[in-house]
């Protein structure tokens, strides 16, 4: 990373939204393209942050704060990038804990890891019904539906989402489904017909990259 990005990189690491946005705008004023700022500074910085979290050198609050800085920058850059028909998103993901299950920290960790890796994540929360997940995925024009379940009696609702997608040609052509959570394992995910399975938040990012067909 070149010297011109030092302040921005530090602001992202510290979760300093104000400095992050002002430094980004300063770079644009100096003639650096938003897409370059993302590829040359923001993405490498977020990669470091994700890596630090995977080793638990930093924790969820720090990672969320860094993601907040990047979201604020994305909002500032949106009009500029739309004009140039450029995008920095790795893909759109709708994430939810399925019906009957109230566990959200694991899902939130996966969400934060996906966000710092450049995915746009729409978090539907916990105890979300199948029809709401599918409608939200359509509304958000999602590429991936990520489902979490921590209890055995919630697993059928994960399967429901997969079955509903399988039964609908349009949905099948649009959405990939990745699954995770305590009782979910690779074997179950394969049997249920999921497109991907993540054992933890770190693997979830790899799976999302694979499903979206983006470089890992």
């Amino acid at each position: 990373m070149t010297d011109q990005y030092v302040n921005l990189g530090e602001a992202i690491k510290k979760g300093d939204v104000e400095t992050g946005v002002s430094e980004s705008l300063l770079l644009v004023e100096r003639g650096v393209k938003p897409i370059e700022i993302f590829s040359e500074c923001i993405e490498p910085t977020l990669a470091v942050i994700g890596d630090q979290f995977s080793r638990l050198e930093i924790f969820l609050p720090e990672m969320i704060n860094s993601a907040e800085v990047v979201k604020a920058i994305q909002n500032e850059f949106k009009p500029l990038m739309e004009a140039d028909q450029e995008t920095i998103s790795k893909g759109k993901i709708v994430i939810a804990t399925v019906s009957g299950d109230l566990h959200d920290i694991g899902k939130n960790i996966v969400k934060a890891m996906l966000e710092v890796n450049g995915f746009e994540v729409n978090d539907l929360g916990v105890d979300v019904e199948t029809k709401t997940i599918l409608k939200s995925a359509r509304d958000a024009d999602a590429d991936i539906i990520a489902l979490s379940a921590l209890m055995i009696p919630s697993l059928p609702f994960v399967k429901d989402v997969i079955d509903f997608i399988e039964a609908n040609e349009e949905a099948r052509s649009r959405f990939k489904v990745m699954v995770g959570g305590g009782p979910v394992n690779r074997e179950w995910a394969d049997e249920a017909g999921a497109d991907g399975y993540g054992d933890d938040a770190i693997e979830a990012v790899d799976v999302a990259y694979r499903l979206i067909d983006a470089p890992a």
Partner: protein
Amino acid sequence: MKHTTRMMDIVQRSLDGPIKDEEDFNNKSISQGLARVVKEYDIQINKDQIVNMDDELADRVWEAAVDFLASSGVYCQSTGRVILHSREEIEEKLKHAPDNVWIGAGTDAVHEVYRKVEDPRRMLLMGSAIGTAIEEEYYIPSLISYVQEPEVDVTMAPTLEKIYGYDIRTRSPLEIMSSWREAELTLEAMRRAGRPGMAFTGLGTSISDVGQLSADGPGGLRNTDLHTFGIISELKTNFEILNKLTHILYRDGIVDPYANPIYGGLGGGMESQAVLITAAMIALNVVFMATCVGSSPTHPFNFNDTGKEVMIPSSLSFQALARNSHLLTNLTITAVGGPGTKTILYECVAFTVMNTVSGGSRILGPRTATGTVTGHFSGLEARFTGELLRAASKLNRGQAEEIVQKAYEKYEDDLNKQPYGKHFKDVYDLKTIQPTDEWLKMYDEVKNEVAGWGLSFD
């Protein structure tokens, strides 16, 4: 029904408390609130030492936790409001918390008591896989493998993987059937083992209020049993949880809830985790009227609590609780190792010794193979845990720390390798319900080894 007035008060607070956006609660009330008190109360942990030796630090963790809880409250998702208690209200309610309770019935009843730091009395053992799933055919034999052990005082049934061959589905008739089936099979297993009055915690297979409460009554969970529910991490509840509590109170049941903070999650690192565990245990009594309060703080990637980063704040937190309250506290051993491995046995040594000298009342588990692998548990590891409880109660914290460190060295490198071991059917003879020679030999070897470290099993 002892707590009608308090229950009504809690419900009213959930309806009248300050309105808050849930994300704000997560980020500001929890994460920033913890960061504030960690700084203000100068909470700094020696990360090389697993068993806390610093009484003043434990007292500061307590002060920080009360301050934090009075500021954060408990978030009610159903109303979008915060159930708040002032510091004075928290302290007043804690004065009235029970310091002992009889659990179970008849000659199988056991007395759970408040224990101080380095208390020489043995903790109680809830010998159980704590809700790990198992196939119906192995349900009774696997449960008998626990309740037949004299060292096991109370139990909790495993979770049914299916009900009569069908997937169990929350909030459906299948969940209600599974709830009844769990109670029937558990009572049958205890009868067969000759301990019909032993208390069990229930009901683990069901999640929803309707599922859990359906078999909480005549023919099912008894009022001498432990009535459990979990609150939502971190410090959150909803009407479904409060519905369970209300029913338990009307049943005059023993209220035995738990809160499992996630290490590295909203609670951050070890210092704030110690404060969060303490605050959550206080909240379980103040808000949820718990008779006994419990936790299994969880690692975000390994899903256990036997790593240093979770045992260190657990030890500190439980000493803070034991030194500043008379709450009946419990921790669950959630281990990565499974039956048929020495890993699980060393994890039991480290965690049980740490917990015993840190002042808990009851220990739960071990929940082997992180509780996520169907059928990977057996009664032998509970027998070992019970023996360890007796041996560890003779130790002071310095002696405990040496043993914990030795045990930890034995499994530290296995923590992220998923050493989940074997299925119950592969480590027990299903006719005699006794451990196989191979599994028994492993247990004997580790027991002899740790006896040489200063644990007296006489």
